[in-house]
């Protein structure tokens, strides 16, 4: 296992860090957005930021599924869960995200709603089979990695003739969000976000391939490097981005060739296409409405579409006041700029979604940022 030894003695990491330090032009700033929360997590866990020069900074992107779900959709899910005879099934992270007035699914559950945490859409189907007299709603969230399992579940429900299963579909798409971040005008009173290149997501790209990023890279003149989620992958991808920026190139390059191809997983794409279609527009927390950025259930599967089967009342949904999640998701603020960070908002008592999920930037700052600050203080006192 030569790779592991290389990682353990850090030789390759040092070599990559050395190359980055040599090639990064000290007279310019490199703002690299890692779109995916998995990368944010890896950058913090391994202290990657400390291995690169100070003029290379990672800007944390909105690729955290529970973070970008707008409060309104969460409020709708809570309303659905509280309906008579409904079982709401969802992934674990969704349970503790605060909606309007900090109400969450876990609080709805305490009030008597039947909310089940599932690991897989297969589990949600099992709940429906085991409870034929109740309506099972699968609260589906996530990017392109979690979308194919939702499509498979709907196809399976149809094949089995399951009449009590439906999906509240909130699946979103990565490439339109990347394009939006680059082209959207700055929010009044905010500095525009500075991005010189993107680290593209690992497993999302294993499904969609690298080709879907090409139009955005071309149109907005920003290089994209699809990166694996391991620390060496992140370092190597950083070097690839710096080389592109230095050379004035704006291409889509693939560092994660072990898993990602240009075409992606064709079978998964075909299954998704069979069941789901583009939404004209969809709201993202932090980004607002983004055109063609989400998926909905096709008319031919209307019987499995929660939004067509249940009435959901219009509501005045509201973000928690003074929570800076939206600006953090746009990449214009750091978690530590938020006055709730670490005071009223902690992973045990999250106010904003970015503190709930391990993929959220606030949770990453909380878990690893303090440790990093401590190490730096020690180094300072030793010097």
């Amino acid at each position, binding site marked *: *296992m030569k*790779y*592991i030894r290389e*990682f*353990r003695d850090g030789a390759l990491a040092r070599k990559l860090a050395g190359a980055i330090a040599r090639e990064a032009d000290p007279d310019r700033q490199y703002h690299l957005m890692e779109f*995916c*929360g*998995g990368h944010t*997590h*890896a950058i913090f*866990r391994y202290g990657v930021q400390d291995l690169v020069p100070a003029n290379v900074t990672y800007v944390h992107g909105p*690729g*955290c*599924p*529970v973070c970008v779900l707008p409060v309104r959709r969460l409020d709708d899910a809570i309303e659905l869960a509280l309906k008579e005879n409904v079982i709401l099934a969802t*992934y*674990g*992270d969704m*349970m*503790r995200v605060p909606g309007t007035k900090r109400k969450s699914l876990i609080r709805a559950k305490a009030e008597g709603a039947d909310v*089940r*945490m*599932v*690991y*897989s*859409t*297969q*589990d949600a189907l099992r*709940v429906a089979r*085991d409870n034929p007299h109740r309506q099972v709603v699968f609260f589906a*969230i*996530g*990017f392109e*990695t*979690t979308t*194919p*399992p939702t499509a*498979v579940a709907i196809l399976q429900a149809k094949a089995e003739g399951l009449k009590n299963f439906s999906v509240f579909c909130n699946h979103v798409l990565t490439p339109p969000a990347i394009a939006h971040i680059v082209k959207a005008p700055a929010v009044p009173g905010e500095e525009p976000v500075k991005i010189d290149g993107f680290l593209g*997501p*690992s*497993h*999302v790209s*294993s*499904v969609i391939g690298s080709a879907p990023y090409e139009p955005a890279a071309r149109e907005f003149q920003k290089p994209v490097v699809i990166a694996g*989620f*391991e*620390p060496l992958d992140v370092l190597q991808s950083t070097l690839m981005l710096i080389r592109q920026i230095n050379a004035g190139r704006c291409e889509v390059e693939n560092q994660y060739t*072990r*898993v990602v191809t240009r075409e992606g*997983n064709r*079978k*998964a794409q075909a*299954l998704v296409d069979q069941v789901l279609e583009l939404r004209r527009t969809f709201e993202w927390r932090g980004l607002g409405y983004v055109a063609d950025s989400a998926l909905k259930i096709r008319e031919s599967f209307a019987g499995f579409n929660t939004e067509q089967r249940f009435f959901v009342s219009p509501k005045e949904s509201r973000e928690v006041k003074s929570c800076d999640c939206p600006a953090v998701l746009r990449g214009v603020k750091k978690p530590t700029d938020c006055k709730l960070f670490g005071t009223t908002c902690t*992973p*045990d008592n999250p106010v904003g979604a970015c503190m*709930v*999920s*391990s*993929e959220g930037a606030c*949770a990453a700052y909380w878990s690893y940022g303090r440790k990093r600050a401590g190490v730096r203080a020690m180094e300072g006192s030793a010097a």
Partner: protein
Amino acid sequence: MRPGPGGMPARKTLPPNRSFNMCLAIPARVVSIDGNDMATVALEGIRKPVSTALLEQVAVGDYVLVHVGYALHKLSEEEAERTLQLMAEAGVLAEELDEIAGADVETGS
């Protein structure tokens, strides 16, 4: 694949502040093909049914990336070992295994 130190205790429910990484997929070895697009994978002593509906072909002995109960992608044994080792070093593996072990939570009526 080597068994993990002591194996992971299967947990019935996740603690309330446990987080769940929706981008991460974990490598596992296919130990049986069970029909209906299902297979059983083994990882660090845990056996779990996963859906293979997203793969064209899968055989016993293949390594696959598992995400939310679905095999997303096939990968080489070397890549699987390497990824698992890195995840173990990063402390991510225990959490992911917990997630998989606790997979059949709350499905009863």
